[in-house]
């Protein structure tokens, strides 16, 4: 089986040789710290760790076009104040910290929406896709019948993006102060998304999955009530997923951190059928419980407690064994529940991967070997060791 067939079989509960071995990614600081532990500078993590291919996108841009011009407003020594490409003014650390702090927002109300954002969200803007020659080459590659890797179609966000543009406080107030504006914004985003799906699929591309990004929950639950979610977002999700289904894209997942269980039934109702990353660390999520509660209709990706990776190897081995029955059942691709932080020793991460490949991957010979770092900076493939 190639990775594309394996991905499809796993998410459709079909017979397969083994589970895909994939990852969420790493904090940028992690790879810096790992360099001192033997990880070669500039190495591609997927190649180095020998994972199945992942996160290969295939569509157009569903966000702002053109984006705002990024510029540094103030240098504060260890941090800097920047207007980002999404118009948000943030303070971000130059050296540490993975999430910037929002200081101000270019989107505040209907006036700023109509002046700065709506004009950047034209559904048929040709700049949503690469220049024609580049796009033609991409289409040629992605439509090859012998393509071996799965591709994902990014279908953006209906809440996460406007939440970033407004800030949590302002968008929360707008739920009551100006619901009509919020509805208009969500509908505009859906118009853009539908247009990008239609253009991508009209080119002959058939992605294995489509992915939303929302990050609209925190450790205690959703940032919006299920009632508001149903009224504001579900109709537009349904509109988008029905277009995806019409084009044969039957795996649609949402990337949403935090405690997602209150919203999961509504996403299922709206045509979404996979959740990612099922954070254990934030609210003790458990894929075993998720499978029991939502059945096989809900596919799962993530669910490995990343905090365990920093601890003793016995704990890592236990975590892999704990998830093995759901891996075996299918409809589940295990990955750490968030990006791997710098407190995880490289040797632990390699131990995790080797165990994952042995248990979830059944130790099959079609798994690429994990490279073993050596101090000189060169690497050896594990399979090449005597």
């Amino acid at each position, binding site marked *: 089986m190639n990775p594309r067939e394996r991905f499809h079989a796993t998410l459709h509960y079909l017979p397969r040789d083994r589970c895909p071995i994939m990852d969420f990614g790493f904090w940028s600081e992690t790879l810096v710290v790992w360099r001192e532990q033997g990880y070669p500078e500039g190495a591609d993590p997927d190649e180095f760790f020998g994972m199945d291919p992942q996160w290969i996108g295939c569509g157009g841009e569903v966000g702002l076009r053109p984006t705002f011009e990024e510029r540094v407003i103030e240098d504060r020594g260890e941090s800097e104040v920047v207007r980002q490409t999404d118009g948000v003014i943030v303070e971000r650390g130059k050296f540490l*910290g993975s999430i910037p702090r929002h200081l101000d927002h270019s989107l505040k109300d209907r006036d700023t929406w109509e002046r700065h954002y709506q004009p950047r969200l034209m559904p048929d803007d040709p700049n949503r896709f690469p220049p024609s020659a580049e796009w033609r080459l991409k289409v040629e590659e992605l439509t090859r019948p012998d393509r071996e890797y799965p591709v994902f179609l990014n279908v953006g966000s209906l809440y996460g993006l406007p939440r970033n543009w407004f800030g949590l406080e302002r968008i*929360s107030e707008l739920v009551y102060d100006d619901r009509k504006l919020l509805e208009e914004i969500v509908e505009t985003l859906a118009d853009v998304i539908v247009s990008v799906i239609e253009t991508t699929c009209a080119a002959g591309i058939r992605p294995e999955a489509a992915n939303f990004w929302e990050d609209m929950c925190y450790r205690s639950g959703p940032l*919006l009530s299920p009632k508001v979610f149903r009224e504001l977002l579900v109709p537009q999700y349904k509109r988008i997923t029905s277009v995806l289904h019409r084009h044969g894209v039957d795996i649609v997942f949402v990337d949403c951190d935090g405690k997602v269980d209150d919203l999961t039934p509504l996403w299922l109702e709206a045509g979404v059928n996979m959740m990612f990353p099922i954070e254990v660390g934030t609210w003790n999520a458990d894929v075993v419980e998720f499978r029991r509660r939502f059945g096989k209709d809900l596919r799962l990706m993530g669910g490995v407690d990343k905090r365990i990776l920093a601890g003793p190897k016995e704990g890592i081995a236990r975590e892999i064994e704990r998830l093995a029955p759901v891996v075996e059942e299918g409809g589940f691709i295990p990955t750490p529940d968030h990006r791997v*932080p710098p*407190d995880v020793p490289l040797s632990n991460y390699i131990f995790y991967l080797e165990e994952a490949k042995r248990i979830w991957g059944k130790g099959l010979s079609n798994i690429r070997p994990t490279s073993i770092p050596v101090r000189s900076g060169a690497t050896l493939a594990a399979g090449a060791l005597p």
Partner: protein
Amino acid sequence: MVDREKLYQAILTGDAKSARALTEEALKESVDPKELLDKTLIPAMDEVGRLFETNEYFVPELLISARAMKSALELIKPLLAEKGAEPAGRVAIGTVKGDLHDIGKNLVAAMLEGGGFEVVDLGVDVSPEAFVTAAKDKGASIIALSALLTTTMPAMKKVVAALEEAGIRERVKVMIGGAPITQRYADEIGADGYSDNASGAVALARSLAAKVPAAA
């Protein structure tokens, strides 16, 4: 006579305009501001907290209620200060050194104010020394620490250590919260309490305020 139930409902439903107008009306009628705060406004915010904890209210409802409460407090606070009325307690709140995140901290600060506490917001990336200074100079008897990242949460332990080193740990209570924080971590670093949400933080602050030793 101003309708207290209407004021209570204005806070509950986040109607800032009515909350301010009704508070103004009550004060014109010479209602005791402390009594208005204790008998109407704080109970309304307590109900908001209860609805939040039982998943009937979510962040938007919490925020608009806090906004309505703030509009009423703007009128009441100067009068309380004139009368020398003591708040439920003084809390110095901040996100710890190395961490720039403030959404959770701001929610907790708003709910604490709504709960009758005087809140000194130290902002983000706050050094242990700044917390010590707030306890000494601003009279904060509760230090509330927030962290979003696993990599910044160890700074909480440094604040506890700084309070000990300054010789004021006995008279100051430390409460902590944030995405990676657990009760176990609070116990591990010697904090006095932990809450996993903004409403629970108010209840925790009240219980800690009751345990603060009386000033000598």
